[in-house]
């Protein structure tokens, strides 16, 4: 981790239903390059919306948000930002079921200048890194939940992102598979020095992070290192 901010958010607001449902209500946040951050909070607190804003999956209403030197309020080159800077891991994997594991990992690389052979080689290496080199031709539907999540991790790493955003990455897994996925994410974070931001309900997941951010009613309630775990947490 270094001291340079990779995320800088000031007074971020987001509403839905023509402003009737205010989900983010003045978020201020800074995250350092290479930091591992967990975002916790009860359902509806705004943590997933915050993650979507960080990954430019949704548009900001008010406030400032700068991620990896992209001003996301300008709504320009958001696809380029997502392709080059962000790797997403979703709770339900979101793999494309009718293509192979290898093709799923190659998908983000279509927006790069890599040739077909380079894409294949890189996908092979990534699948090897996540322990799935013998499943390259398998369809995701034939894999277990843990294996699917490994494919999703390989896909998230395809374009060497600066930040990995994971929304409940162990939420749909049994505890053993979940533990393995977390170990893998933690290892990749340390090895590649990638900034890792995880949204979770699970305190066992949250406590692995360098810092835990607690969100409640669209605001940051606490942002501290994980030593405050013994205090009351509204999770």
């Amino acid at each position, binding site marked *: 981790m270094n001291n340079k901010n990779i995320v800088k958010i000031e007074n971020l607001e987001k509403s839905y239903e023509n402003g009737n449902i205010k989900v983010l209500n003045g978020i201020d946040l800074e995250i350092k390059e290479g930091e591992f951050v967990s975002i916790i909070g009860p359902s509806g607190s705004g943590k997933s919306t915050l993650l979507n804003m960080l*990954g430019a999956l949704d548009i900001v209403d008010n406030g400032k948000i700068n991620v990896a030197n992209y001003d996301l309020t300008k709504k320009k080159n958001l696809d380029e930002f997502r392709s080059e800077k*962000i790797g997403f891991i979703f709770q339900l994997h*979101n793999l494309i079921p009718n293509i192979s594991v290898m093709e799923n990992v190659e998908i983000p690389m279509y*927006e790069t200048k890599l040739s077909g052979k380079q894409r294949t080689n890189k996908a092979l290496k990534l699948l090897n890194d996540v322990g799935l080199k013998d499943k390259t031709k398998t369809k995701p539907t034939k894999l277990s939940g843990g294996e699917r999540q490994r494919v999703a991790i390989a896909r998230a790493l395809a374009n060497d992102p600066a930040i990995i955003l994971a929304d409940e990455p162990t939420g749909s897994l049994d505890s053993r598979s979940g533990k393995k996925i977390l170990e893998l994410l933690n290892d990749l974070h340390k090895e590649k020095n990638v900034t890792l931001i995880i949204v979770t309900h699970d305190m066992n997941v949250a406590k692995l992070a360098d810092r835990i951010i607690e969100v409640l009613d669209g605001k940051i309630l606490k942002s501290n290192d994980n030593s405050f775990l013994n205090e009351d947490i509204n999770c």
Partner: protein
Amino acid sequence: MIGNTLDMINSTSWAISLLAIVIGRIGIVNTMIMSVYERTREIGVLKAVGWKKRRILGMILGESIVLTVTSGIVGSIIGVIGIEILKTINILSSQMVPVYTINIFLQAFGIAIFVGLIGGFYPAWRASKLQPTEALKYE
């Protein structure tokens, strides 16, 4: 007199072809809208991993053209087989001799590609405009 009759046959033939093009276009729009609808979540994933609008547009248009060209090939084969059957059972009059020229098939494939493009454009444009968060929420 013969010239007038031939003109009338030609006009009727073009009118039927035009009707087929219109029906084909409606069919393609319907098929591609359904395809986009069923794959909303997949399109959301493609947007989330950084695919640009024009790549998604190209993907859907490409599928639409593949569909219409395949239909063109199947239609041409069925057309030739149909005419050969009519010839065998002597329904065609002796004055009507079917002629297969390369131009007829080129026209058919040209029209198929055109129908694929115009029929696929609206569904492709809709897919490219989807918001990633909305698309990913789709069940």
